[in-house]
């Protein structure tokens, strides 16, 4: 309030000038106006300066820098409550810099530069569904009536699908995807549009069957089944489920694929994406994803609305 007192003093000293006569001339008005504004500006500036000192908060500039490098989608894909929380955690306690799905590799590289840590620019990750049990191949065990949500349906006798590992097809993942990358196909399965996927992992957490996982784009050979049931039981409920026949295991030259708990599993540390297992799998559930994508694109170009054939064949 020193500014205000100063102003009063100035005013008191010059009070008689404009007050006398019928009114100030144009020159005087401009002069007084400039003076008042100047003094006021100076006083308020001083006030703000003092206040900024008195109420100063120490913030790490790195947090703001990282925040600027993040896309600001606040999707929570990193597992924290929004971008600000991620930035703060990175600065305070460190952690992996590539957890931001929407920001992708670019954001990760920027964050790594800001924090001065090394970052192997890993390739893009996308969400993949580990089930090919369409309504045709994996029938329902009952007619379901209720909330159209997989998590709700799973509460009623484990969901309508006879296979207790398979995709329920009620679209909870599609509703949860903030980027519109998942759509429910007419075949009763969720389909991920890889180009739209930001790897936020919302679908991974929301699927009651945990059928999604974030896979590196490099890992082109993938197992599209999640059933740990023994072969006989799987065969009863699904025509395209892993029956643990171990043919893939035998076909692999790199010992990269093993049947563990009745389900083929690929060790990507050893896998060379040769595709030998894809060829031998009798159920067509080991998928060469790149080939499948090519086939799908070709089909899209043909714009034929045909049902998805076995992608693995290609």
């Amino acid at each position, binding site marked *: 309030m020193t500014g205000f007192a100063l102003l009063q003093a100035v005013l008191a000293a010059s009070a008689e000038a404009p007050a006398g006569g019928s009114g100030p001339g144009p020159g005087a008005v401009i002069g007084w106006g400039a003076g008042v504004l100047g003094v006021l500006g100076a006083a308020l500036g001083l006030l703000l300066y003092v206040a900024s000192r008195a109420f100063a908060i120490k913030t790490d500039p790195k947090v703001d820098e990282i925040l600027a490098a993040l896309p600001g989608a606040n999707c929570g894909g990193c597992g924290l409550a929004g971008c600000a929380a991620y930035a703060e955690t990175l600065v305070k306690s460190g952690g992996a810099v590539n957890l931001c799905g929407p920001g992708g590799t670019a954001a990760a590289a920027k964050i790594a530069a800001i924090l001065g840590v090394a970052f192997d620019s890993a390739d893009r990750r996308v969400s993949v569904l580990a089930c090919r049990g369409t309504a045709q191949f994996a029938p329902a065990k*009952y*007619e379901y009536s*209720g909330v159209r949500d997989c998590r709700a349906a799973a509460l*009623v006798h484990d969901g*309508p699908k006879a296979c207790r590992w398979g995709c329920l097809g009620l679209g909870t993942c599609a509703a949860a995807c903030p980027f519109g990358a998942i759509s429910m196909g007419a075949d009763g399965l969720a389909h991920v549009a890889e180009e739209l996927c930001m790897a936020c992992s919302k679908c991974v957490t929301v699927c009651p069957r945990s059928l999604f996982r974030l896979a590196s784009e490099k890992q082109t050979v993938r197992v599209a089944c999640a059933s*740990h049931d*023994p072969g006989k*039981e799987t065969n009863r409920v699904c025509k395209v489920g892993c029956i643990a026949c171990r043919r893939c295991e035998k076909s692999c030259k790199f010992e990269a694929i093993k049947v563990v708990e*009745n389900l083929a599993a690929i060790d990507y540390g050893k896998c060379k994406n040769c595709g030998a297992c894809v060829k031998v799998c009798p159920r067509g559930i080991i998928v060469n994803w790149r080939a499948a994508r090519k086939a799908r694109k070709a089909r899209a170009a043909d714009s034929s609305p045909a049902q998805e054939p076995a992608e693995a064949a290609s």
Partner: protein
Amino acid sequence: MSESAGTPGLKSAPPTAASGFPDQWLVSSSPHERSTESVAQIMWTVVLALLPTCVAGVVVFGWYAGVLIVISAAAAVAAEAAVQKVLHRPVTIGDGSAVVTGVLLACCLPPNCSWYVPVVGSFVAIFIGKQLFGGLGRNYFNPALIGRAFLQFAFPSQISMPQWPIVTRASVFESVTGSIFKVAAGSPGGPDATSLATPLAQIKPALPAAVSPLAALGEPLNQDKLDTLRDLFLGNIPGSIGEVSKLAILLGGLILLLNRYINWRLPLAYVGMALLAVLLLPVKDSSGHWTGLYAAERHWDIIGETLSVHLLSGGLLLGAVFMITDMVTSPTTSKGQVIYGIAGGILVALIRLYGGYPEGVCYSILLVNAARLIVEKYTVPRVFGTRTRKS
């Protein structure tokens, strides 16, 4: 998991063991049976309840009033269908809610307004008041009243007519024109709109002299008080199509009450509080002094008559029975309904006594609509088992 695999031959066989079994059982979460009552049934019942009111409107004002009602309802249905088509939603005109909106809107229009007024109003009501929010059940304001408030704003001269139409039987009409209903600003001989207040204002000059308001209303027609009262009740007065006949409105209200589609608390609180507020709020008399019905020198009969004029004129009862009770926009808690009604009642009285509009019902309900969620939030019932135990 895998350990459960040990008993071959015990796996469940497909459920075809006995005759008569369906291929697949229908499975849902409990309960497994539902009532047969549907939303459409509720809405069509409301239409049925509005029917006496519409009939009364046609009887009082002639066939054109009926045409307006039909136009309004048809426009509402057409608007609903068109908007739903454009927005790629399932078309739900069969549920009757658009008809309710259209008819309700027509009920608060003057009987001689142009045909396009209800068309515009219905479209605004359905499109802005309802479909933009997602359709029936998702709107926060009564669509018909949104339409009506929009019309008041867009076509003031059509809504507040300088000349209200002649009723079929000339009775209190000439007396009440410009009295119970305020005439629009600038009409020849009519007082300035902003300085004029609603029914009480018309009766105001009579107040200091302790003159009966009913007698004052009936005087130009050489009608006695009882006839005036009867006309007010039966609808032999000027006004909006649906608001004139209180008998018809009460009949509709009875239908809704018996079907339990409205709760008695809400209309009662609304009307009761409106009248109480009229009784208690001070107004300026012609000499500029603040006075009111509560003043000591009033006689009971005059107080009673003034209140009955307030009750029976304007849209208070129409609003109380059909509008403030609208399921979608009113609170569901019992306590909330009482508070909601009371708030609405106070607002009606405020707007009637002090406001710039002739009638406060429409705005009072829109205003409480805006506060509905807050009222509900603070009147959520105490959950079972959270009472401190009686020792």
